[in-house]
């Protein structure tokens, strides 16, 4: 892995967020406001990103198959479980309250506003809560597995 590509990916991604309007809270909330004055722009962001993504991930998928020894971070194929459902719903509520998701949160830090800092610190706290409660969660799953025996 070449670290420069990671930095470049972050830079291009952040530029995309700026150009697309994803870093504007007002635009995200206007997209989520179906009952109000709806701004469909963000559907175009998804369309643009996924059309390029489909090509890239198809190439990446073929390459992974061609190199069977190379473990991929991509294929962590768990099923659709309660964790996925609950987590996505919780995230959606937070996104709807703020109009900010993790990527734009980090990009907004660059403007140094107290609101952006508040959001990102709270987001990192939420991630920390996840890490800390994870031990209990794992323990509960283990106990359940033991009971299942």
């Amino acid at each position, binding site marked *: 892995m070449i670290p420069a590509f990671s930095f470049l990916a972050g830079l291009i991604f952040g530029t995309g967020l700026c150009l697309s309007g994803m870093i504007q809270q007002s635009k995200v909330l206007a997209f*989520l*406001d179906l009952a109000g004055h709806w701004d469909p722009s963000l559907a175009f962001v998804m369309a643009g990103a996924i*059309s390029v993504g489909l090509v890239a991930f198809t190439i990446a998928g073929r390459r992974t198959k061609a190199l069977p020894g190379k473990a991929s971070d991509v294929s962590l194929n768990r099923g659709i479980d309660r964790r996925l459902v609950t987590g996505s719903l919780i995230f959606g509520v937070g996104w*709807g309250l703020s109009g900010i998701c993790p990527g734009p949160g980090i990009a907004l830090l660059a403007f140094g506003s107290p609101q952006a800092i508040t959001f990102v610190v709270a987001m990192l706290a939420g991630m920390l809560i996840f890490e800390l409660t994870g031990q209990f969660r794992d323990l509960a799953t283990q106990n359940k597995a033991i009971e299942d025996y």
Partner: protein
Amino acid sequence: MSIDWQHFTPLTSLGGGILIGIAAGLLILTSNKILGVSGILGGLFKPRPGDAGWRFLFILGLFLAPLAWRSFAAMQAPPIATNSAVLAIAGVLVGFGTRLGSGCTSGHGVCGLSRLSPRSLVATALFMLAGFATVFVTRHVIGLGG
């Protein structure tokens, strides 16, 4: 529903989306990593040896992008109109929820849908539904506005 034509930006949004797709493609093809911001950040809490560097560099690039933009062209700081208490609650929900659900708008919404993952399709549908419902309640039921 009425369409907000005044703020509708199909071309710049499509262009920005294409850049986002290029960034995701660059990361998967050069480094075999998924461009999921919540996952990249979350991995820093329990870093495996040799796994933190690329995460920091990605976050640094993301953070510097608006500054780089501003050194070439004008861009106003996007206003955040939500009050701090709501922002703090929202931030905790976003941080916790994306880690529990293993992804956010970029990881599930862009990369997951691009690789046609059923899990990501369900996750994206659910966080969008929850987002629609939340905005409906805050704007049209309790009337919080922006």
